[in-house]
């Protein structure tokens, strides 16, 4: 993503990042790019919501407590998306943090736009 980001820096905005990855928004394309664990995937707004819901549905506590599960890999498949994730427990936690942070920033962006542009009084 670094190359893409450098090449068209004005088109991509970093929404949120943690140690495991970064989420970029493309205003021009109206979508987001998730750079996670060496994999770059494009999501439209529905896909991003579905990914967040899928990750939030993973019962991390159950994965931690259940010693029968081997290996501790979850497959996260998003309908109508050409990609899927195979994640271990730590990756699930990291991706969940990344997405939660992203949605907080998107909500903050909405509040700022409301205050600055949509509620001009």
């Amino acid at each position: 993503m670094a190359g893409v980001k450098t090449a068209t820096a004005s088109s991509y905005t970093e929404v949120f990042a943690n140690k495991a990855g970064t989420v970029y928004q493309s205003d021009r394309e109206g979508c987001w790019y998730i750079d996670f664990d060496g994999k770059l995937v494009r999501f439209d707004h529905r896909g991003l919501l579905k990914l967040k819901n899928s990750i939030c549905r993973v019962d991390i506590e159950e994965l931690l407590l259940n010693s029968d599960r081997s290996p501790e890999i979850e497959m996260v498949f998003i309908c109508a998306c050409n990609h899927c994730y195979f994640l271990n427990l730590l990756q699930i936690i990291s991706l969940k943090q990344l997405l939660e942070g992203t949605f907080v920033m998107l909500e903050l962006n909405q509040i700022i736009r409301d205050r600055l542009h949509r509620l001009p009084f």
Partner: protein
Amino acid sequence: MKDIMRVKCLLSADIETLLNQQIKKEAHSSAMYLAMASWCNQNGFDYSSDYFFKQSDEERFHQLKLFKYVLDMGGSAISPDVSGIRQEYSSLREVFEEALEAEIAITQSFKVIAANCLKEQDFVTFEFLNWFMKEQREEEYKARRALELFEVIGEEGTGLWEIDKHVNKIKYDSETAGE
């Protein structure tokens, strides 16, 4: 940075989830009323059967109204799985008792959605829900009146036959009723 989420969809994720849950409840109600219509028909209660056929259609209409609203607002409307429909009842009274309970549950559910809309200041959806609030007044009234027939007429002798005949005549004609 553009606000793409808001541009694409008016609904928040939470409200969209609640509306999809309501779509499922309406689908369940429609299927439940259809099962009631079947039971009434099999047991000779023709007017009650007609009443529940109409109720089933109404619930289906409610489901579609919610479904189209979610789509119109840019959300993802989910066609629900419906299962666990009760097919057998021990009496006509029990059928109407369950119908009233179901309507009360639906009203309570709409109240929860409306409360969440107010919390989020989603006045657009709140206004949309007003139609359902009015509708629930009618639905609960009709279900309650039907059950009261069992007390007013009584089940002895030809009582059940009289009750069945009267069920289809229940009308809620308040000018404030839903259309």
